[in-house]
């Protein structure tokens, strides 16, 4: 039983967009094992197929070859760079919808929504509408909505990319806490190398066109971490060097 030891298993996954000479190899036989409870950061330059990979794991797209397996056949939850909240629903309504769609009985829903909003510190804002909140608050609502899916695997596609540095720092603490409390497995895509070093147990570098796993490194800095600590800066510097070398390959 090898599957029991991994939460997400990708083996030889390839994805091609388009046909003939114009075809783009977004992913080329990517293999990846993520352990249960592991926080993995995926880094790469633009066009490396990071988002494609997440879509495949989330089941929003299908690979051309290879296989994607999730522990116990669970459906992972995906969080985007934009909050993608439904503007016609209140904050509580947005968080309720996944519960409703999963058939959670009505009396249980209110309780769960309150608990989820509390975990992202937004219990007072339950009746507001998304447009009445700041960017960081909206992203926290999106996180609560994603957590409402109750899946063991959380996929995040540059979720903090559009936020200012201070809000981002705070959300780093938040996601780390929630990940630890709930024992989640996280696959986190980012182009921010420091963010990857701050959050990840492991950093994986994807090459561009075709997207392949070219390098990986464990981050053994003890938690709680600070993004401005020297240890994190050291890891970030190493990843940046590798990333630059990788990007440089496309220069000639």
């Amino acid at each position: 039983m090898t599957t029991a030891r991994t939460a997400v298993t990708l083996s030889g996954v390839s994805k091609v967009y388009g046909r003939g000479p114009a075809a783009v190899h977004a992913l080329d036989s990517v293999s990846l094992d993520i352990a249960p409870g592991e926080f993995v950061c995926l880094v790469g330059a633009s066009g490396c197929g990071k988002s494609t990979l997440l879509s495949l794991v989330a089941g929003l797209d299908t690979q051309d070859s290879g296989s994607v397996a999730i522990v116990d056949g669970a459906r992972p939850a995906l969080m985007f760079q934009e909050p993608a909240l439904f503007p016609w629903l209140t904050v509580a309504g947005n968080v309720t919808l996944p519960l409703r769609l999963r058939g959670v009985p009505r009396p249980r829903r209110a309780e769960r929504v309150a608990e989820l909003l509390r975990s992202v510190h937004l219990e007072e804002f339950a009746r507001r509408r998304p447009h009445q909140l700041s960017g960081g608050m909206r992203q926290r609502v999106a996180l609560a909505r994603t957590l409402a899916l109750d899946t063991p695997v959380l996929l995040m596609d540059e979720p903090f990319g559009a936020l200012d540095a201070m809000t981002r720092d705070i959300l780093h603490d938040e996601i780390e806490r929630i990940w630890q409390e709930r024992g989640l497995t996280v696959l986190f895509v980012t182009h921010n190398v420091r963010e990857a070093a701050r959050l990840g147990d492991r950093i994986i570098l994807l090459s561009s066109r075709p997207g392949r796993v070219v390098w990986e490194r464990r981050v053994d800095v003890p938690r709680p971490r600070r993004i401005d600590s020297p240890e994190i800066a050291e890891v970030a510097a190493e990843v940046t060097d590798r990333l630059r070398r990788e990007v440089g390959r496309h220069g000639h």
Partner: protein
Amino acid sequence: MATDLGTAERTITGLDALDLADRTATPRGARVWAAAWPKVLALGLAVGLWQVVVWSGWRPEYILPAPATVAAALVDLVRTGGFWSSVVNTAGRALSGYSIAIAIGLVLGVAVARIRVLRAAIGSMITALQTMPSIAWFPLAIVLFQLSEQAILFVVVLGAAPSIANGVIAGVDYVPPLLLRAGRNIGARGWRLYRYVIGPASLPHIVSGLKQGWAFCWRSLMAGELLVIIPGRPAVGTSLEQHRGLSEYPEMMADMIVILVIGLLVDAVFGAADRAVRTRWGITENR
């Protein structure tokens, strides 16, 4: 560790408070005044212009009556029982025609938006129907249904349904792809994606389709009531034509004002619905 958590939480609530600090709403009275005064001014200018034209003597006053004469005729008109029965008849026609148009428009819109073949086949035909002036349908309608309620209904529905269908189609087409992805990710697939994501997301377009549909409905109905005069069935448009025939021009213009006011009132209802949707969604800035 406990104090650590407390600090983090305080930082978050502090940041949230700062982020939301400058979002205060303007008082209600000021908003109503800001919305009302340009309209009052415009009305005053229009009436003033009308009076100036009358004074200029461009047409004799028995042909182009002054605003005050028309106002007096209007007051007399609304005191008669005949006036109210024609308003009831006209409103009944508008209501039944518009209801049928909504039913057809919604079904047609959803079908065309969902089914690719149908879109290719009749998608552009709906827009073509919309450009057809409704008055041009009347000869055919009269040939088919004679001078009857059905003739009017036929044209009213043909006038209003395409706009409503187009609103629905635009609504479905312009649902942001990101919301569809988010919807699918949280488990809304198949018809539940329509029920919980596509339907509500297309609401603003559907409301503007309904609004435009009403405008077409009202215009078609007035054209119909001028042309299709059914004995024993008084109606607002019919009254307009009869007053012209009897050279009762102040009464004729009073009828025009009635038509304008009814159109504006219903339009205001749609305007309010439209604003309510926009406010809920946060599309407008001045809440």
